[in-house]
């Protein structure tokens, strides 16, 4: 436990020392929230049938929390892990009993902490600036948040385990991030998207995290299907990532 604690602390510091990841996790989602708030903030409900009939910001606030989770998992983490592989850091860690599980555990804890900070920033801005109502069911929102955060972290670990170089991992991570940003529920309202855009959007993990969070937030109940998808991504990614790293070591 002591070692996991130390490793988590070190990984936390490494995260903070990486300005690009910091920007994507804390600043960019907030920036988009304010941009979208500036554009749609005055619309109280979907008169034109937008946003599933919700107020724009009630729709976007959970979506930008999901964007924080996407960023935590997809932007920095794959390149970080691939760099560890490339530069022999994993080998060095392993030789000193810092196993893959400890490394994954530390990454998971760092993700949860950073995601929580980023998520709270969005929540505070949504509630105080755009007068979004607080979640109907806070416990379900927290549960949805935890599952989604760990799910995106696992996805990031999987990308980091399979992509050949840290350059590739950074590139793929950024492309996925922007695809999800635009089509995954944090971009244009679904009603404004073409059929094809919606189909692609449905394939992004973020879309499912957004729906899971929104449903819990807006008191629409627990969406078991979306939960199943997030849990599935978590289990499959984590298992595959572990197997791949074990085999290549």
């Amino acid at each position, binding site marked *: 436990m*002591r*070692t996991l*604690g*130390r*490793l988590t602390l*070190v990984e936390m*510091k*490494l995260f903070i*020392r*990486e300005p690009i990841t910091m920007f994507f996790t804390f600043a960019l989602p907030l920036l988009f929230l304010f941009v979208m708030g500036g554009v749609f903030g005055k619309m109280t409900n979907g008169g034109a049938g937008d946003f599933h009939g919700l107020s724009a910001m009630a729709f976007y606030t959970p979506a930008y929390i999901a964007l924080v989770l996407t960023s935590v998992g997809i932007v920095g983490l794959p390149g970080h892990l691939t*760099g*560890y592989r490339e*530069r*022999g*850091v994993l*080998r*060095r860690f*392993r*030789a*000193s*009993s*810092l196993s893959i599980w400890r490394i994954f555990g530390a990454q998971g804890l760092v993700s949860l902490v950073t995601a929580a900070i980023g998520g709270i920033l969005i929540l505070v801005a949504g509630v105080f600036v755009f007068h979004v109502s607080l979640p109907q069911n806070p416990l379900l929102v927290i549960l949805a948040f935890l599952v989604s955060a760990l799910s995106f972290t696992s996805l990031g670990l999987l990308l980091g385990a399979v992509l050949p170089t840290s350059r590739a991992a950074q590139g793929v991570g950024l492309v996925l991030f922007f695809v999800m940003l635009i089509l995954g529920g944090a971009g244009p309202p679904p009603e404004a998207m073409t059929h094809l855009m919606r189909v692609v959007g449905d394939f992004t993990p973020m879309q499912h995290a957004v729906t899971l969070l929104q449903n819990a937030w807006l008191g629409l109940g627990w969406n078991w299907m979306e939960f199943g998808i997030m849990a599935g991504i978590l289990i499959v990614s984590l298992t595959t990532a572990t197997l791949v790293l074990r085999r290549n*070591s």
Partner: protein
Amino acid sequence: MNKIVQDPTKVIQVENLRKSYKDLIAVDDISFEVSRGEIFGLLGPNGAGKTTTVECLQGLRRYTSGKISVLGLDPAKNIGALRRRIGSQLQDSELPQRIKVWEALDLFASITPGENGWRKLMKDWDLESKANASFSSLSGGQKQRLFIALALVNHPEVVFLDEMTTGLDPVARHIAWDLIKEIRANGTTVILVTHFMDEAEELCDRLAIVNKGKLLALDSPLGLTSKYATNVKAAFSYDGNELPSLEDIPQVKKVTRNGRTVEVEGIGSFVSLMAAKLVSHGIVPNDLRTRQPSLEDVFLKLTGHRIEV
């Protein structure tokens, strides 16, 4: 696979170790034993199989066949228990770029319960002034010293050092050698992988010469030279034409003349006999020098070529 017959006085036992890849045999039937408190060296050129061998011993690589026992444990089975008792300095491994020196030491120390002696290690290995420097800002020598310190941070019973002085300047190398001797004096067994002849000669109690996956010879440095490189070389300058026939001295093997320089190779006491003969002929060279056989000669004799760095 039969279990190895344990010998409690041996810290490491390796029997018929083989490691093969698809089209390459990296380690070809290597056997050796290491006693507690020894500095044991594996000497050979790059690609000889030294690193593969010690990586199998540290459980970082699976081996194809053979038997290994390290501290009575099989690295393929009890790796968790073994890792807490050994220290590793690996080739081609790094740390996260932005980790600080003290953070790395603190992290690696946390693996051993109650361990907080890393500050002394930081001082011993001259890293105190770099405590707050990030890994990527360190010079090659500083990184290397940090890796050695990390290998020692859990007070290992056996420490594996793979090319530990690569990248160190001459002064730092000698300091490293003294510190390694000190570690051994404290009871730690040291496995040293190196391609530096002088390092092997200076530090190792016993030495395995490895080339192309095979163990060619195993003995103390002195034992190796007296067995495989018996020829002493002597050289002096001589301006005259007529040289007394030094070949008549039974211990002399070979005389070559190259301009003013005369080179003589022989065994045993030939230098004294040769000098006496020269003096009796009125030749008193003032630059007579001799070179004792070295590991370099051993390696040349065993492999037919010089070690390539």
